[in-house]
């Protein structure tokens, strides 16, 4: 995962999507078949002790929360650190964390946070406002190049944090910001007493590597790193000073140890989960979920289908303004891609139900717009997946001047055969299968498509740098339900505006309208007005089809049936979001 450390956050988010994870809030936990389908709504009183084994898809690039770019490192940040205001993964609302309360000024630009008292880092040192000031200084330092830095730039200006007293800080924004409270999530509070010296010396990026001895580490999360076995596992031990307590006042977490076992693929994870080597698993693929439910050991497992998450898969065409004569072949094909009727015909001919059934075993939902069903708060419910109609698609193409040749090949108004390639990332089998389905569907229109699965790094380079591709199948899924988490996708200047990223000014008029609406909702404090604006954005995106929305996969998770408080969420880190309250029921306790 080290390559990832060098790529910006935008790409890291892309990768998250590429690995097909993406939790998303808002969906009703729909119990899976088999045992363990009871879904407790409130936390149960646990019994302390025990050891839980979870899976991690790769070794984290770093233990340093400031630099966590890859997904394993972000999971680790969640487990070993705490933030001031936290997004509860279950309710999807903000809740007090290290800040026990806060107030916002009337103009929405000044946040005053009162810190929890009597909080200690895992090494026993106290936590106070100096640590908060230090943390924001580090995150905002361009030299440190934290992937989270862009989150703290609001209206083009960095947020300003000031200490009022030892337990009060204020945060000033350049203007009102609709999702202000959500800014604080994932900003891990750092121990000034350990990191001030390396930061001053410019060596912060060398601190807290995965092999760093545990006595040089301190965090405010439920666990702290203990033993690292290269290529095998990272063991975390209970943080004896963790600030959270259960309703009876007992210190959390309940578990003594959390072992993160590195499993290189979703299949390796599933095999180990089935054999009992791993106790808890997020991001199970649909095929593996069905196989696990049918396996002989399924009685031991609690498998949960949480319904569609925030992830959405889509096909899109290269709509970049290509400079000069660099890519004449691509530029020639762009004449088709730029035609709305062409994109609509493609959208209409794709068999979304077949994708749902064949690729996801029915554990996905067809999409008609950019916001999946998992996001119940913000989805424009008027947007339905288009009904498949080959006839209507053909009529659209005919109207746009395309003709069907005698050999069954579609030809453009100039008589050139319509042929192009679709790239996708080879590591994601579901996407390669989706591409095979789209390829067959387009054949019905006389369009010959080559499917080219390539490595993820090379794919990102083509999409964002060289623009040397025709069409691509990819997925995205924000870390949060709030529209702001998708703003880099829909803003024409955004780094994830995949079909034509980082535009200096919007190329089309509808992109200009989307830009305006997205900017307006950013500062809109009235939630209903904000919803209307975002609905309008979705409406435009569904009409203009810069992305041909395909399906949104369900979020699937599982754990050993004797694990208490197992309530996975569609928001990351799905099964481990409430790791502090997970416990082994007396019927089975791990040694």
């Amino acid at each position, binding site marked *: 995962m080290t390559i990832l450390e060098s790529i910006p956050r935008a790409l890291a988010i892309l990768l998250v999507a590429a690995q097909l994870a993406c939790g998303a809030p808002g969906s009703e936990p729909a119990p899976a078949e088999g045992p363990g389908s009871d879904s407790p709504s409130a936390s149960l009183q646990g019994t302390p002790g025990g050891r839980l084994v979870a899976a991690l898809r790769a070794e984290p690039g770093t233990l340093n929360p400031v630099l966590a770019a890859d997904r394993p490192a972000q999971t680790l940040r969640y487990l070993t650190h705490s933030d001031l205001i936290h997004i509860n993964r279950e309710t999807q609302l903000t809740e007090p964390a290290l800040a026990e309360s806060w107030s916002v000024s009337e103009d929405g630009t000044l946040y005053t946070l009162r810190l929890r008292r009597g909080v200690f880092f895992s090494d026993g040192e106290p936590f106070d406002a100096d640590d908060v000031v230090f943390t924001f200084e580090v995150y905002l330092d361009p030299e440190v190049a934290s992937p989270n830095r862009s989150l703290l730039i609001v209206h083009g200006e960095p947020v300003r944090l000031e200490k009022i007293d030892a337990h009060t800080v204020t945060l000033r924004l350049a203007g009102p910001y609709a999702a202000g409270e959500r800014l604080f999530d994932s900003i891990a509070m750092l121990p000034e007493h350990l990191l001030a010296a390396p930061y001053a010396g410019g060596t912060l990026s060398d601190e807290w590597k995965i092999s760093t001895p545990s006595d040089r580490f301190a965090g405010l999360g439920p666990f702290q790193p203990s033993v690292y076995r290269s290529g095998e596992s990272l063991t975390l031990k209970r943080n004896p000073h963790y600030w959270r307590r259960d309703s009876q006042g007992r210190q959390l977490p309940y578990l003594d140890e959390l072992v993160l076992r590195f499993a290189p*693929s*979703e*299949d390796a994870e*599933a*095999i180990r989960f*089935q054999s009992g080597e791993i106790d808890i698993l997020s991001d199970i*693929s649909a*095929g*593996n979920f*069905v*196989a696990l439910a*049918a*396996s002989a050991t399924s009685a031991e497992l609690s498998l949960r289908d949480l319904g569609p998450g925030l992830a959405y898969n889509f096909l899109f065409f290269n709509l970049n303004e290509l400079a000069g004569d660099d890519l004449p*072949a691509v530029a020639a094909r762009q004449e088709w891609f730029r035609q709305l009727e062409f994109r609509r015909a493609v959208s209409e001919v794709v*068999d979304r139900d*077949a994708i749902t*059934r*064949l*690729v996801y075993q029915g554990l996905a939902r067809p999409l008609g717009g950019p916001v999946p069903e998992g996001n119940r708060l913000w989805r424009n419910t008027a947007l339905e997946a288009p009904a498949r109609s080959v006839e209507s698609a053909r009529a659209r193409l005919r109207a746009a001047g395309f003709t069907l040749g005698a050999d069954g090949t579609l030809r453009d108004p100039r008589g050139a055969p319509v*042929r*192009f*390639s679709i*790239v996708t990332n*080879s590591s994601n*089998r579901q996407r*390669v*299968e989706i591409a*095979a*389905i789209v*390829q*067959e569907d387009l054949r019905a229109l006389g369009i010959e498509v*080559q*499917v*080219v*699965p*390539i490595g993820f790094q*090379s794919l990102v380079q083509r999409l964002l740098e060289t623009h*040397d*591709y*025709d069409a691509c199948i990819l997925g995205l899924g924000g870390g949060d339900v709030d529209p702001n988490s998708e703003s880099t996708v829909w803003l024409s200047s955004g780094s994830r505006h995949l079909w034509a990223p980082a535009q200096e000014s919007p190329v089309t008029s509808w992109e200009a309208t989307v830009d305006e609406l997205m900017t307006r909702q950013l500062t809109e404090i009235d939630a209903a007005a904000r919803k209307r604006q975002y609905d309008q954005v979705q409406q435009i995106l569904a009409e203009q089809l810069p992305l041909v929305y395909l399906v949104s996969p369900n979020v699937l998770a599982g754990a050993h049936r004797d694990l208490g408080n197992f309530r996975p969420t569609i928001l990351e880190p799905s099964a481990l979001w409430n790791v502090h309250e997970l416990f082994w029921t007396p019927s089975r306790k791990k040694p």
Partner: protein
Amino acid sequence: MTSRSARLAAYCLLALHAVAALPGFFAPYGYAVQDRDFPYAPPTRLHFFDARGTLHLVPFIYGLRPDEGGSYAEDTSERYPLRFFARGDSYRLLGLIPSSRHLVTVDAPGRLFLMGSDALGRDLFSRLVYGGTVSLYAGLFGAALALALGGLIGALAGFYGGRLDSVLMRTSEVFMALPWLYLLIAARAIQPLDTPPARALLIVILILGGFGWPRPARLIRGVAASIGRREHVLAARGFGASDLYLLRRHVLPRTGSVIWTQGALLVPQFVLAEVGLSFLGVGVSPSIPSWGNMLGDLQHFHVLTSDWWWLGFPGLALVFVTLAYHLLARGATVTSG
């Protein structure tokens, strides 16, 4: 015994290559045809007796309907007799002659899945046959190229000796040390995205052959060197025979048995190399089947646990081909020995 088993192996291989040369005819369906109502269907059972116990001389199949358990049951209400040399999906024979005749098929809406179907409802038997074309001929042509290069270079090095020998043999060592897998990945990466699968296959063949010549070259060099010093060759040279004459008349014919044996050993190696590359996803495009990318599906947990049997077929075919070529190689060694 050995020669008989070698002959048997040769016939089997001949038959197999003939099938692989005409995949459109031998496969009931096209490799990309998806029947989306039947993903992961089990192999279709052939019947001679119908539900009432009546014997039918032409075997027939029943249609499939999904049952509750996510599997399939036979729908005995309609029989579909096998049709031989009937019309079906169109294809081009040897890539040239348009045709739609298939060795065996059934009338629609019946579906003949001799080895079952995959995740997208594609017929696995058809994909195995088409995959054989890719895997077997990549091996065969790759080995032919390696032998042609190796034979020529080895014969020149052995016959002339001296500096030419040193240069050629050191070059062969360099080639043996080159990481050809990375070269292959790099060669694939610089190709345009819309490279047709046939060209991608050609690249695989060129790289297999282009990097496989050193071993046969070194062997043939040894043979050529020893022949070049034989008395009858020296005598011929004394009578004024040219180098070209000596190579053509005396040296190359003597290397024949070595070349045959090497060929029989190299082909299965290269078939396995292609399978390995496609298994890793750097061989032929996944849009067209090869035994390697079919075996690649076996890595998936749910396939491994519930549908492993159908993917065993490319594995079995591979074992069979490797075994047959090795028998052939042994036969060739014994004959020449």
